[in-house]
């Protein structure tokens, strides 16, 4: 694999990590930057995708699935995560179930200043909720997703994966 290829976070990496960690359901709002990931998830016969109308629903649906013994993952953008504040509080933090929330890090860059307020407030938001997070920017970071699952299971709390590479390999 070339350096350029290694620098791109491939959607297949996320799906492989989901399978490795026994994920049964993805609860999501599709966005234009992750369309290929959405299509790839739809192709997996071991994975059920639940499209929702608003991000706050995703954490509550995840709670219902967790009660029933399933392994859900929430997949939304940082803007939607911030909209979901009370749902995160009441349906995830207060639930006592592990949950990995994969958050598209809109506006994230490590080059120069971050100008998008969606990115500026993402980590302060997670810190305010005392939710730990792992930054995943490229393929080589893929194993951090398994670290998030491990931490979520150990603590029975939500743990976030911030996808800081929304604008590369997720659309084809």
């Amino acid at each position, binding site marked *: 694999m070339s350096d350029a290829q290694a620098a791109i976070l491939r959607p297949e990496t996320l799906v492989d990590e989901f399978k490795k960690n026994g994920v049964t359901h993805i609860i999501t709002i599709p966005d234009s930057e992750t369309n290929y990931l959405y299509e790839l998830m739809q192709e997996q016969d071991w994975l059920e995708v639940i499209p929702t109308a*608003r991000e706050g629903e995703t954490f*509550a649906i995840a709670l219902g699935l967790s009660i*029933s013994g399933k392994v859900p993952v929430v997949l939304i953008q940082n803007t939607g995560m911030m909209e979901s504040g009370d*749902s995160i509080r009441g349906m995830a933090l207060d639930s006592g179930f592990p949950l990995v929330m994969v958050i598209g890090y809109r506006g994230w860059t490590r080059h120069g200043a971050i100008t998008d307020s969606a990115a500026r407030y993402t980590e302060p938001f997670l810190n305010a909720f005392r939710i730990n997070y792992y930054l995943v920017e490229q393929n080589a970071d893929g194993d951090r997703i398994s670290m998030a699952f491990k931490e979520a299971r150990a603590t029975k709390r939500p743990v976030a994966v911030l996808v800081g590479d929304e604008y590369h390999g997720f659309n084809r």
Partner: protein
Amino acid sequence: MINAADVFRVFQTHRGKAIVIATGTSGKHWMDFTTHQNRDLNLGGAMGQTTAAALGLALGLPDEQVVLFDSEGALLMNLGIITTIAGKQPKNFFHFLLDNECYATTGGQPVPNAQGINYAGMAKEAGYAAAYSFDDLETFGAQIGNIMNEKGPVFVAIKVVPEVENEPIGRRQRRTVRTRPETIRTLRQELGIADS
């Protein structure tokens, strides 16, 4: 309008082994009629997201009937959920709406367009398999048996008498309810679901 307690009294005889989630000021009456507490869930407490949690449960337990007694104030906070439910078409999901036309717990202020909304119409047009409206107990009692034998998602809107609470929160008499963790634990034991 129907007294919420009468809705539950009639429903109980048709419950079978359904898992029941009751929310809102009207939902408090369920505890007086349930005969299978191990299959009752307390999922309230996040600005109307109980509807979505009940959907998740129905999707995760496709062989169990899941019955939600929702309130219109809660549903209006997350109205898009009816499209999410319709999109997944859970055949085991029964979505009852106890519509008292107001926010009873905050003093009875009307919800937006309180008397002008056709909730069953919205659910049907969103894509529920079936939708009903009731405002008298006799008709509800005559049809509930058949409704519980239908394939979901089914929506049942019921006009209920508001039970407005005006006392400051600290002075209200509270009934002892089973906590959410307790109801989750007993349901999972009942269904043989291993600890996460």
